[in-house]
């Protein structure tokens, strides 16, 4: 089990220098095993600092992070072991590819775990399968691949550690619409196949709205909102006041309501918008 419990977590950068800056302050929350979470907030809101605490890349200035009941900062061993349990995919992960072959690069994590050769091979195949990297690419150099393929190989490199929690920081940044859809599909597949917790850090409201079951909104190092997409997007004014955009459908629904059309429920996907408008049409027709 990989339940995450965060207790009054704070992080201050460059303590005691003129550059001292509080990145996150007194954050407490619980993420149960298997949840699909979106972390929203603009650059500098603290969301990236926050996720780097979940696998002990950053140590808290104060507060605690528990994963599966263990304090991940307890000792050096715990700090290292949590890396297998909580996989973190950074923004533009393709820039960290370094091995001569795709296979070796995906195998880097499992190798660091000290697994046996057969086990490593099995995991590489499995991870490559989740992200749709074909086996005939295994012996190619990662540098020869296309941008989208590189990104998927890099994600496979983290998935191959079979983390119970998968965190992705802006996994679709810089990709075209087709590339974005493919990555999001891969992530959904991984979650369906393993029951892992998935946390996506994103600016993209439309993705966040469509895929996740819980949204946590960061603002100035604090959790400003936390709830289901329905709850979050039923308060679009609050999102806008934080300086975040709302999904296009939500914006359109707001405008329609202003024009006196009485749309039902929270609207944050295209399908919901169409359904709400159609329903109105039927009622109107009666």
């Amino acid at each position, binding site marked *: 089990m990989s339940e995450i419990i965060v207790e009054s977590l704070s992080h201050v950068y460059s303590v005691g220098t003129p550059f001292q800056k509080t990145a996150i302050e007194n954050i407490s929350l619980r993420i149960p095993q298997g949840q699909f979470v979106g972390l929203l907030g603009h650059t500098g809101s603290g969301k990236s600092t926050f996720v*780097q605490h979940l*696998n002990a*890349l950053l140590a808290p200035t104060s507060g605690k992070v528990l994963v599966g009941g263990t304090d991940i900062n307890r000792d050096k061993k715990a700090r*290292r072991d949590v*890396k*297998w349990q909580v*996989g*973190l*995919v*950074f923004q533009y*992960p393709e*820039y*960290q*590819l*370094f*091995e001569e072959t795709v296979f070796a690069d995906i195998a*880097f*994590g499992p190798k*660091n*775990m000290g697994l046996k050769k057969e086990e490593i091979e099995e995991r590489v195949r499995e991870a490559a399968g989740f992200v749709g990297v074909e086996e005939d690419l295994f012996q190619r150099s990662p*540098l020869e691949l296309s941008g989208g393929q590189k990104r998927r190989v890099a994600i496979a*490199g*983290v998935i191959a*550690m079979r983390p119970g929690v998968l965190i992705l920081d802006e996994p679709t940044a810089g990709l075209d619409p087709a590339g974005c859809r493919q990555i999001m599909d891969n992530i959904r597949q991984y979650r369906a196949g393993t029951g892992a917790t998935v946390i996506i850090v994103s600016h993209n409201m439309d993705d966040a709205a469509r895929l996740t079951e819980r949204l946590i909104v960061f603002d100035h190092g604090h959790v400003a909102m936390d709830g289901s997409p329905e709850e979050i997007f039923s308060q679009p004014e609050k999102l806008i006041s934080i300086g975040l955009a709302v999904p296009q459908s939500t914006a359109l629904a707001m405008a329609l309501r202003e024009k006196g059309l009485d749309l039902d429920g929270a609207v944050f996907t295209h399908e919901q918008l169409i359904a709400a408008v159609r329903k109105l049409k039927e009622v109107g027709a009666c």
Partner: protein
Amino acid sequence: MLKDITLGQFFPGDTIVHRLDPRTKLLAVLLYIVALFQAKGWVGYGLVLLVTALCMAMSHISPKNIFKGMKPMLFIIVLTALLNIFYTAGTPILPGWIVTWEGIDRAVKMILRIVLLITGTFLLTYTTSPMALTDGMEVLLGPMKKIGVPVHEMTLMMSMALRFIPTLIEETDKIMSAQKARGADFESGNLIQRAKALLPILVPLFVSSFRRADELAVAMESRCYHGGSGRTRMKQLRMERRDWIALALSVLFLAAVIVLRRLGL
């Protein structure tokens, strides 16, 4: 962690030292270094020390910043001092001891020399923007173009390198975190294992540096860069009265140190 490196960093300011022409400062540092190596006796060293302190005070650079930048060189300084203390023949400080008065004398002077050398060059880089510095160098080395030395290209490369240091440091930090997240271990193991552990950082860093260089070259060409010929500068270097005074003082300083050396002081 890597961001703490202050080597070669510029601290903007508006003191007289900051305002001096970079050529003046470059020449002055050159004269200073020559003087430093001419100093022999304690009086000579005292004079150099005094002048250094004066320049530091004028440029509002705190000794703390200088020492912070000196940290990476601490090992060399200590080693040189130790070698001098233990391997200089002369009168032992106590009968039968290996440490001699001459050794201590030399060690202290050696430390002084290295520390002052570093301080002098730091004063230059702390008070002069890298751009101004390379501009100054380009002008000073200008005559060498006549004998075919690619002065413009060399100074341009230098300023580019300086421009990209912070970017590369940031990138190294990022790659390191990413590899740590995949369980890379940079802290344990013997020397060879540790060197090998650096590959996952160095390879991506190299690849990205080449990509950067490539993109940068195209971007520069797009902005009509076509070599040094026919280029003008927005900020033209101009020698003011204060520059000539500073240069005169620097020459005077060197002369004084040489005179002291002749006098055996």
